[in-house]
């Protein structure tokens, strides 16, 4: 067994993990980065399309390009990089945390003062959305297909049904179109695509890929390989409309039906999980409910832009620094998602600091000229934000001046009715 000792261990070598590790290394801490795969970069290594870094670098980079900025940095900063290393156990003790990890080089015993989880998310699969029918070859998640095409040069099938109108589904549709799929159809239960408008234009409309809104897959047909799917129309509440079933012949079904934070491990060590985001509850510096254990990126909640996920990591790096410096916490101000808010982070404010608080939220309605209100526990309006559009598919970012929150116990964010 090999023993290691660090100030901070970052678990997960994707964009958020890389960002937090490099920033902490720049601050002078002894940092380790643990990655289960044999490469850094996370999901970005399969994202060969562009559009990454528009906020951070003012450039539309490809996934690998974006990742390489941080990977190069990580390599020059003397970060302890543990590839092919899988974290099996984490034990939390006062002022010390111990990680047991498995790697082809043997078991690693890693002691550290702080841990940042940056393990991202996973894709929802067919069984989580209760698709009926058989379970033949030819049903994949979109991320797997993206990897398959872009890294292995293999097409999953020829006549393809894509389920889900989110960004990943749209981007995969474009790849499939370019790489030789013969027939493509995208179906989704919403009235409109759930992804970013730029992807609707660049992936779907530009290539004339057919799509069918308000439709879901009722059943998969096929014994050994997918032979088709029974599609059914749904109403506004996503309830199937009887009699609208139709058979769509295809050999492949690709599911792009949502991402779920990989928070199970955090739950195991005792961190509180938010049922809305499915990620851990965090404070304004992305510390979980376990002291000295932080969570960043898509593990906390699904970000639309890698730039935002990276921002979460950079904020967390400041938090880790505060933790390591044993800076005091003040008192807890609860952060509550109010009306029309589906999810909100952070969940609480607790450090003594003077920086603005960066909050992310997702609305559960579509609204033009929307006002978002921040109110205290007595219902007093603290601040209003204006958005030209809000919609469930877009994660909104707001900054909250810290002085507004003085003496508050609880603040609520909601979308104004008017």
């Amino acid at each position, binding site marked *: 067994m090999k023993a290691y000792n660090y100030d901070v261990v970052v678990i997960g070598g994707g964009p958020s993990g890389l960002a937090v590790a490099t920033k902490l290394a720049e601050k002078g801490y002894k940092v380790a980065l643990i990655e289960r795969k044999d490469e850094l970069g996370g999901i970005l290594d399969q994202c060969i399309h562009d559009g990454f870094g528009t906020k951070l670098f003012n450039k539309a980079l490809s996934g690998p390009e974006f990742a390489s900025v941080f990977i190069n940095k990580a390599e020059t900063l003397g970060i302890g990089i543990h590839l092919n290393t899988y974290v099996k156990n984490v034990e939390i003790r006062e002022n010390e945390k111990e990680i047991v990890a498995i*790697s*082809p080089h043997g078991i690693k015993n890693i002691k550290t003062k702080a841990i940042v989880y940056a393990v991202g998310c996973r894709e929802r699969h067919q*069984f989580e959305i209760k698709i009926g029918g*058989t379970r033949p070859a030819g049903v994949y998640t979109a991320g*797997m297909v993206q990897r398959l095409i872009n890294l292995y040069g293999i*097409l999953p099938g020829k006549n393809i049904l894509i389920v889900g109108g989110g960004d990943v589904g749209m981007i995969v549709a474009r790849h499939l179109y370019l790489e*030789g799929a013969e027939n493509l159809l995208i179906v989704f239960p919403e009235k409109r695509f759930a992804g970013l408008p730029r992807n609707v234009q660049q992936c779907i409309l530009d290539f004339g890929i057919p799509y069918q809104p308000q439709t879901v897959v009722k059943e998969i047909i096929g014994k050994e390989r997918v032979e088709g799917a029974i599609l059914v129309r749904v109403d506004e509440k996503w309830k199937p409309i009887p009699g609208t079933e139709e058979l769509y012949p295809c050999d492949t079904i690709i599911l792009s039906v949502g991402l779920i934070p990989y928070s199970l491990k955090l739950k195991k060590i005792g961190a509180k999980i938010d049922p809305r985001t499915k990620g851990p509850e965090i404070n304004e510096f992305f510390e979980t409910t376990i002291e000295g254990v932080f969570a960043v990126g898509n593990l906390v909640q699904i970000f639309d832009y890698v730039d935002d996920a990276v921002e979460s990591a950079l904020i967390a790096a400041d938090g880790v620094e505060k933790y390591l410096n044993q800076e005091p916490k003040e008192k807890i101000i609860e952060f509550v998602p109010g009306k029309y808010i589906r999810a909100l982070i952070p969940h609480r404010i607790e450090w003594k600091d003077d920086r603005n608080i960066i909050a992310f939220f997702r609305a559960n309605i579509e609204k033009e000229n929307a006002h978002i209100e921040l109110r205290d526990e007595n219902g007093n309006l603290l601040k209003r934000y204006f958005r030209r559009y809000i919609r469930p598919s877009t994660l909104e970012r707001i900054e909250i001046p810290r002085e507004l929150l003085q003496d508050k116990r609880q603040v609520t964010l909601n979308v104004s009715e008017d």
Partner: protein
Amino acid sequence: MSSLESKVAKILKRYPYDITFEINDKIVFLYGNVEKYKEWVEIGLRIGKIKGIDGVVNKIKWRGFPEDRFKEKEERRRMLFEKNREKVIGEYDVIIIGGGIIGTAIARELSRYDIKIALLEKASDIATGASKANNGMIHPGVAPPRNTLKRKLNIRGNAMYDKWAEELGFKFKRVGSLWLITPRTLIRYKKYLPGPLYRVVLKYIFPWVVKFKGMRNGVKGIKILRGKEIFRLEPYVTKDTLAAVYVPSTGIVDSYEVTIALAENAKENGVEIHLKTEVVGFLKEKNIIKGVVTNKGVFLCKYVVNAAGIYADEIAELAGAREYTIHPRKGVELMFHKDTGGLIHHCLSELVFPSHPTSKGGGLNPTIHGNVMWGPTAVEVPDKEDTSVKREEIEFVLERYSTIIPNFPREQMIRYFAGVRAPTFTEDFIIRPAKWVKNFLHVAGIQSPGLASAPAIAEYAIDKLKAMGLELKENPLFNPRRNPIPATAEMSIEELDKRIMENPKWGNIVCTCELVSEAEIIEAINRGAYTLDAIKRRTRAGMGTCQGSYCTLKIAEILSRELGVPLNDILKEESKLFNGPVRGEAP
């Protein structure tokens, strides 16, 4: 008219159809047409219940009977038969048809003796029929009626599992069953009993009825529990439980793990296992089978064991030994995340009488790997391969068993699947020599509790073979032991570290949900697995939270490397996992 004939005629008179029948050696053959599949099943079952009948061959057709598909199948078999009837593969003492739990159990039991055995399986792996879609329960033997072969073999089979598990190295745990008696148990009879009396019956009388039935069957250790005793064993079960019957001998296994273990041990002891080998006919001389014709060629033989599960009737037909018809009965199971494993400790069910027509019994089961399963249902389906799960069926199971543990986190479901049982109309195991073919042994109708009975079925089948004249001489080299593939997930850190030092592949975790290393996958390949699903059944890779979205590609890559075949030729089960290179270009 004999009494059997008049009994059959009396039953058929109830139906408005022109159904004819003949009885040959206590086997009833039915002909005619009915409107609904349901009626086809019903008529068969009614006739199967007649005492003194050995089998029902139901040749009645229902409206929508897939005539063309049967013809196509027949034609295909005939073509393969003609093509392969001359190509001799080898000479054997015993040919076993079917690589499920029963076929492999018989093969392994027979490998104790110095004879030449081949097991033929049409799929790409063993255990791909009912044996892969089973809830893994080793029934105690309370349920089967008296005077059935099922009852006898169930109780004996259950008792034999400890030794099997120990020798074959599969996981087995006697978790015990807890059958809850709640206000819903006899709800249909409530109107005959005033309220307080109903409770008394449920709490004090009914448990004894169940216990007595079990005791009469010969099941030991049955206890009646009330009040706190129940909740001490199972703290989360419904609080309105009035009493519970506890049966300690119920066990759990992973049915495909058992099947794989049996096959590996049989192979180790000299049984030839031929996968992708489909029986298409028989070479016969008078009433003796001389050879089994397959898509690969002819297996010359002295004895044939028909353990073809759902296809047993078709195989019997090909051999001229059709004595029964299988009516496929589907069972749906829901699988829950390991996080829910702590919520139950026994096989739990709520006794409801009369039992539900589409889910006889069933309940909540712990799995040997720490998950929880809900189900199964029991639905008659016309298609033997109908393992589809409809959304309504998922909802049905969720609804049906939700009263057992009301607060169960139902959203933690990670998979659902269905298997098809192989009952005959007489609803008992049929293990006997064929009536009209001399060297053909039926091992058919092995439905629930077939898994629990399997060790005893194998023993019983071999006694039958002996009685048929098979001479058996002990094989001095027989080794009853088989070593399972070591599982990273079960190793201590120290042990794993040691293994990694010897072979770094133990340290390469491929499936993170179930903690499966590359070394395990390679070991499974070395033991004969060559499809993604075969790997999954042997290592659990892909069985966890993400259902393979992360590891499928990695496993396919390992398979491709180890087998020396391109990635796009890797199979899932029978079909290719992926279509092919992009833009049709070779990689």
